């Protein structure tokens, strides 16, 4: 069992009641995470997704969260405002095999929220900065957590590639590319 440890937890808090559905968070997120920061805007590459449905008055920002290694059998039931919603749209699992949410539209690589990790760190993640209506806020608090292995982007990307192409093919490609790099 993993050891318990005190740790500062930083978290983006979602208050769906305050969301006006403008999706500025999606736009800025895609810009911030583009290779050359803000060189492109494309909500399709965003790591936050606003489930946007004015016809049912449903505006729920969802952050790309843990990776879903397999299809989830138990679809979640949500009761919002007395109404029942039986769907997985509010689920933050990235790279989920049952849907295309939080997958890069071209490479299909998973898109996980990293709270805009950077050096030096941002005061607040980008989506929180642009949400002046406070549907998104940022909280820091001390918490006892079980230490576990963090999935970083490289892990997730590689895992996805291994799943798609098999370990041998990935290894072979890796070796070939490294060799190419080393050849003057």
């Amino acid at each position: 069992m993993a050891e318990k440890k005190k740790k500062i937890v930083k978290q983006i808090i979602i208050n769906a009641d305050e969301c006006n559905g403008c999706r500025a968070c999606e736009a800025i997120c895609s810009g911030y995470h583009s290779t050359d920061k803000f060189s492109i805007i494309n909500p399709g590459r965003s790591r936050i997704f606003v489930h946007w449905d004015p016809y049912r008055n449903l505006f729920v920002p969802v952050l790309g969260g843990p990776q879903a290694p397999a299809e989830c059998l138990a679809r979640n039931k949500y009761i919002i405002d007395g109404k029942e919603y039986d769907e997985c749209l509010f689920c933050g699992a990235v790279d989920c095999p049952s849907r295309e949410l939080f997958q890069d539209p071209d490479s299909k690589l998973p898109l996980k929220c990293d709270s805009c990790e950077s050096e030096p760190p941002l005061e607040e993640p980008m989506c929180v900065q642009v949400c002046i209506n406070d549907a998104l806020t940022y909280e820091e608090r001390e918490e006892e957590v079980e230490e576990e292995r963090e999935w970083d982007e490289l892990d997730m990307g590689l895992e996805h590639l291994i799943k798609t192409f098999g370990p041998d093919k990935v290894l072979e490609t890796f070796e070939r590319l490294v060799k190419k790099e080393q050849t003057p």
Partner: protein
Amino acid sequence: MRYGETGYDLEIDLSTGNIEKVERDPKLTELYLGGLGLNAYTMWSRVPADADPFDPDNLLIFAAGLLDGTMAHGANRTIVTSYSPQTKLLGFSMMGGFWAPELKYAGYDRIILKGKAPELVYLWINNDKVEIRDAKHLKGKGTYETSYLIRQEMKDSKVQVMAIGLAGENRVFFASLEHGRNSASRLGLGAVMGSKNLKAIAVRGTKDVPQAKPERMKELYFELLKYIQYRLQNPLPGIPGILAYIGSPQEMKLFDERWHTTSFAWGHARYRRKDFWTEEIEKKWAETQRRRIERYVSCYNCPVECGAIIRHDGLTTHRYLMKCFSKLTYLMAAESDSLEFNFDIAGKAQEYGLDGFTTPQVMAFAVELYENGILTDKDLPGFPKNNEERFYYLLEKIVRREGIGDILADGVYWAARRIGKGAEKFDHNTTKKHEQMVIKLGMLNPIYFLMYATGEKGNITQIEGQIPQAPLPKEVREEFVKDWPHVPKGKEERFKRFILEWGDEGKVFPFYPPPDLCCELVEWQEIMHYIDDCTGVCAGLSSFPIKPPYHIHNYPEIISAATGLEIDEDELWTTATRVRTLVRAINVRRGMRRKDEKPPEDHWKKRFPEYEEKLLDTYYKYRGWNKEGIPTIKTLKNLNLDYVAEDFIKRGILKPEEEEE
């Protein structure tokens, strides 16, 4: 590599089913920016000058603005353009929301539609996949219901839909295109869409919109965001609450409707109720508003929340979306004191896809004709006694073009002429055949006279802005001009002096401001709107409010950071003037002349016919137009509109330059 814009148009012929993705000459962006500018150019070059709006050869164009889909706040407008069935002139109606940015992300700046589908269809655009799909199952369905059903079909909550309702299918001359609370509602373009047998366009896109100067774009974004936040918290002192903020007038959030209900006209734009606003009404309306509004909502990439989701149990979707003055248009026209009634009927009318501005006026016009014996029980069998019920009665007749509804569906101007029997006399609130703002005032306002008369848009709210609508109270004037960086270069001294002295003794309407200053003020207001219509930035963040986030000084840098187009203030001004002049040229070619440039006859009680002619002369001259309001050869050539000049000479609209002098 193109930035900000995709550089591609989607050309679709609905008659043959042919679909093509066509790259545009980048030179056109320099000349016309995007949005309305490009649409006007396409309409001029490709649609015959005498085409009927419902002719399959008439184009229906949907454009995203140049900045749509970039980080620019509020750059989300869709500019729909065609010939208007009502005015027969160029109709360009705009809406905010999410549709145009989605089109950009799908890889297109515009959709150019021609022809007519053999049966009702809708378009499905998903990146490179474009399909014309059968829409038989959507026939007669409401605008919200259609959007809802298509989104269900796609199982993707990011699909953005715009649709027409029964009114558009039946070619009602004031039918709208609806996309959530966003309506391209003016000038009947929903009827043109109906004439092409096109029910809806659904879009989904996951492609990149590149920005030319990413870091600068980010800085500008946060600068503007800070100012937006400041303006939302700091209404301008000395200005009516409804105009003191930014955005569309904040009628969903504000409860105080004294300004609209006591200074705008009730019934068929006939009379003011100066004592209407009482404590009792305020309390009752506030209760209704709180109960009916479920949530405040924004358009894409804008924090301002001008819209609201309204509860409505009479609709299959149980709710609809609203903003701005449509909160009051129906109740004021029906002379009803019930805000509940307005929320109810506005929802039904939007579901049918009707313009919330013209529709109530047409209904009030019919009621007036009935009360004056011009329409009788024969025309209106079973016409109820109560005005609210009468409006529902008329709504059903109009959207079905049933009985008298078939005539009323052409709008006040055409209906009055089809009915005859003196009905023409009751057509008192239209300009260029289009229903105008329901305002009846005392003294002629020379600035608004020019905007009503010469405006190409048919809607004053899409022309006015930047300056207060009445003199400021003395005690706030100094403070107002001290912090007013929005004023165009070279005009600072004159415009600031205007604010400081306007309202003083001898500095009042109609002879103040003098004609030349009126022209300059009108030009500024117009130009800001034309820039927005090209860039796709919402007027609520730019051309409509006083002291807005976007202005002539920061616009060039925003455009350049997003698109890489190096443009300075003067060039941007000239470009907007080019677009404004091209729009006028299209209308001139359709027959519009000086005689058409008249505000509603009774808009002001005190009129000064000779002085008004002088105002018009001064404005035409200032613009470089001749006495008929036609841009001269010299003006056209200075604006790189030589092709317009040549066409005008060929058609005999203008004489060659040497003969003109």
